[in-house]
């Protein structure tokens, strides 16, 4: 006695067609979207990695924008300080000139006048603002850092503080973005504004001009030393920018590895499913037309 077999295979063929249809749809979705992960269940671990990757990319982008805007601010500060150096050098020349004992009172008065002009120019530079905030007041960025004060030995009152502000430029690194005005212009090792005022007083009184000139020279090199911080900050920002760019590239590559559609294998899966689909349709059509015994019985 032979084994009886399922006389009706149509339901199986129909189910087979539905399955290949699903495979076709899946391959198609991957090709159309360019991504291998189109919902979390496609690759749960991959989805998790993708989320972390996207978050890192977003953070890296933000750091890059920060680096950019800081570069602009620091360049503004540095160029202001550059004008200050020019002015200080002019004052030094005037100091040398004033040391000449041949000068008349009128000549000396003229020099005092010019020195006062330079003093005001320096105060103005020290009060430079950028994007609504003062650059040289420490962290008191909304207060004008320097005001002229004739009763003060340095000729000014400093209204800022001594704070340095740092900005984070990547996960493990921060960059100092300012030198306080007090450190730049009123440094205890050599105060530029103090020395200018000192020179003015010395020329006015025609006494101690040489000492005052020397003091100004010392202050000028202290100033240049302080100013260099901006230069090194800008250099650091430059290399930070480069580092962030390469990090961004790495993250993009990582994202691709996690999520990019493997077009070659998706296409081939699509082709295979198409062929299977075709075969099943043909098989079903053949089976449906198969005669049975009753067809032949007259």
């Amino acid at each position, binding site marked *: 006695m032979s084994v009886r077999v399922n*006389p009706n295979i149509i339901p199986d063929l129909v189910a087979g067609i539905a399955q290949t249809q699903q495979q076709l749809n899946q391959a198609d979705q991957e090709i159309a979207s360019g991504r291998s992960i189109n919902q*979390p269940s496609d690759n749960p671990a991959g989805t998790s990695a993708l989320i972390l990757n996207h978050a890192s990319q977003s953070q890296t982008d933000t750091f890059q924008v920060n680096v950019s805007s800081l570069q602009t601010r620091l360049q503004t500060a540095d160029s202001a300080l550059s004008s200050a150096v020019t002015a200080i050098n002019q004052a030094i020349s005037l100091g040398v000139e004033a040391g000449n004992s041949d000068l008349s009172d009128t000549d000396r008065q003229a020099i005092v006048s010019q020195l006062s002009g330079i003093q005001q120019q320096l105060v103005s530079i020290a009060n430079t603002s950028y994007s609504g*905030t003062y650059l040289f*007041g420490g*962290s008191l960025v*909304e207060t004008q850092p320097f005001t002229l004060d004739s009763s003060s030995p340095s000729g000014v009152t400093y209204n800022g503080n001594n704070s340095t502000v740092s900005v984070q430029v990547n996960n493990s690194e921060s960059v100092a973005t300012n030198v306080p005005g007090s450190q730049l212009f009123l440094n205890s090792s050599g105060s530029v504004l103090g020395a200018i005022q000192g020179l003015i007083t010395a020329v006015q009184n025609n006494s101690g001009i040489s000492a005052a000139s020397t003091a100004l020279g010392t202050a000028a090199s202290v100033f240049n030393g302080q100013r260099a911080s901006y230069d090194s900050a800008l250099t650091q920002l430059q290399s930070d920018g480069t580092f962030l760019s390469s990090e961004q590239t790495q993250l993009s590559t990582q994202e691709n590895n996690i999520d990019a559609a493997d077009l070659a294998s998706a296409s081939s899966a699509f082709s295979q499913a198409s062929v299977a689909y075709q075969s099943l349709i043909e098989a079903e059509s053949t089976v449906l037309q198969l005669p049975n015994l009753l067809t032949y019985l007259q």
Partner: protein
Amino acid sequence: MSLGSSLSIAVQAMLADQGALAVTSNNIANVNTPGYTREVANLEEAPPSQFGNLSYGGGVELSSIQSVRNNILQLRLNQETQNQGKLNTFTDGMNQIQTVFNEDAGTGLQSLLSNFFNSFQTLSSDPTNSGDRQAVIGAAQSLAAGFQQIAATLVQQQQNADQGVTQTVQQINQLTAQIANLNQQISTTSGAGLNSNSFEDQRDQLINQLSGLIDVQTIPANGNTVTLTTSGGAQLVVGNQSFNLQTATNPSTSFQDVYAQGTDITSTIQGGTLAGDIQLRDQEIPAIQNNLDTLAYNIETAVNTQNAAGYDLNGNPGGDIFQAPSGVSGAALNMTVSITDPNLIAASGDGTPGDNSNATALANLQSQNIVNGQNPISYYSGIVSQVGNDAETASTQLTGENLLIQQLNDQINSVSGVSLNEEGANLIQYQNAYTAASRVANVVDTLYQAAIAMVPST
């Protein structure tokens, strides 16, 4: 032994073949009827009669019409149908839930989380910038809206599952009523010694449908009836009586609990659509909600605490950025930004307007372990991958289940399915036998004529 007995044997044969033809005809008519089990005409030799020392056969009789069914296969099919029903419903629900965690294009909650924390990072490079400050508030509002939307969708899915419970219970009650009715009819018919095959076919079909809805156990009982219970033992059908399931609102969840004769059986249901909906509604979705709430609660709390540690643009200690959540539960659905004045963002660490250390600290919360030992991004990625895992597992199991059921159906069909070739052959056989028997009757009639002709007429 007489002509008469030969005639009666021929006539009996014709009747038997007629009956067998009727069975064949019924099979052919029902070739496409779902759930139909083919019938076989059992022809048996009639008891012989003794004449002297000779034994003459008694001809053929149609002793029974038997439906060829395999109850074991049917039971297995029903078991797998229960699993399939549960997995189908669960997988559908999970696929809908997945759409709300659409992180593949990078436009889901992760981007809102990143934008929020990074807005503090941007602020830290220019702490008095009003545009940057406003951007923080904007990002906070987007984040809150994102949490609310996901939470609301989860609630909606729960409600959908709850409606599913109510509808399924109604369908179950309809089916059990019909099955009880069939039990009655089968019992009556079998009791009268009659063929109850088509009622049994219908009953099998209904029990299979019921299996797709709930985890039903089939126990054969008296009079060819079946007793149906859930696998937890709640009665569904006993003899000609069906027992309705009821739904009642649970006072603490406001969802429908399922009762069987006064007992709450909600957590004991293991199969069918009902189990799928209950699992979604009472386990899977609440777990996701709890994780989402935990994330929201801890972010709100940590951000508020950090803001309070700094100073705003007016030089005052910072206040709440988010409306302080009353607890973990509901934190996502109720996430609200309470700050409206950008000056109140406490970017400064020491009260001076240019200091940014608190803004930096706020930004760095994204990489600190502020959510149950994980950082917020990492915790969120865990939520999403869990959802993906649960969906994938169920989907894979469903595919396997579908295949298994297909195989079982094939097996059942190979036993019970109507083969037109087979029936065609039977048709010819019974037709020939019928014709042959009628020939015999014809011949006997001729012999009668001959015998009568032997007596001379007067």
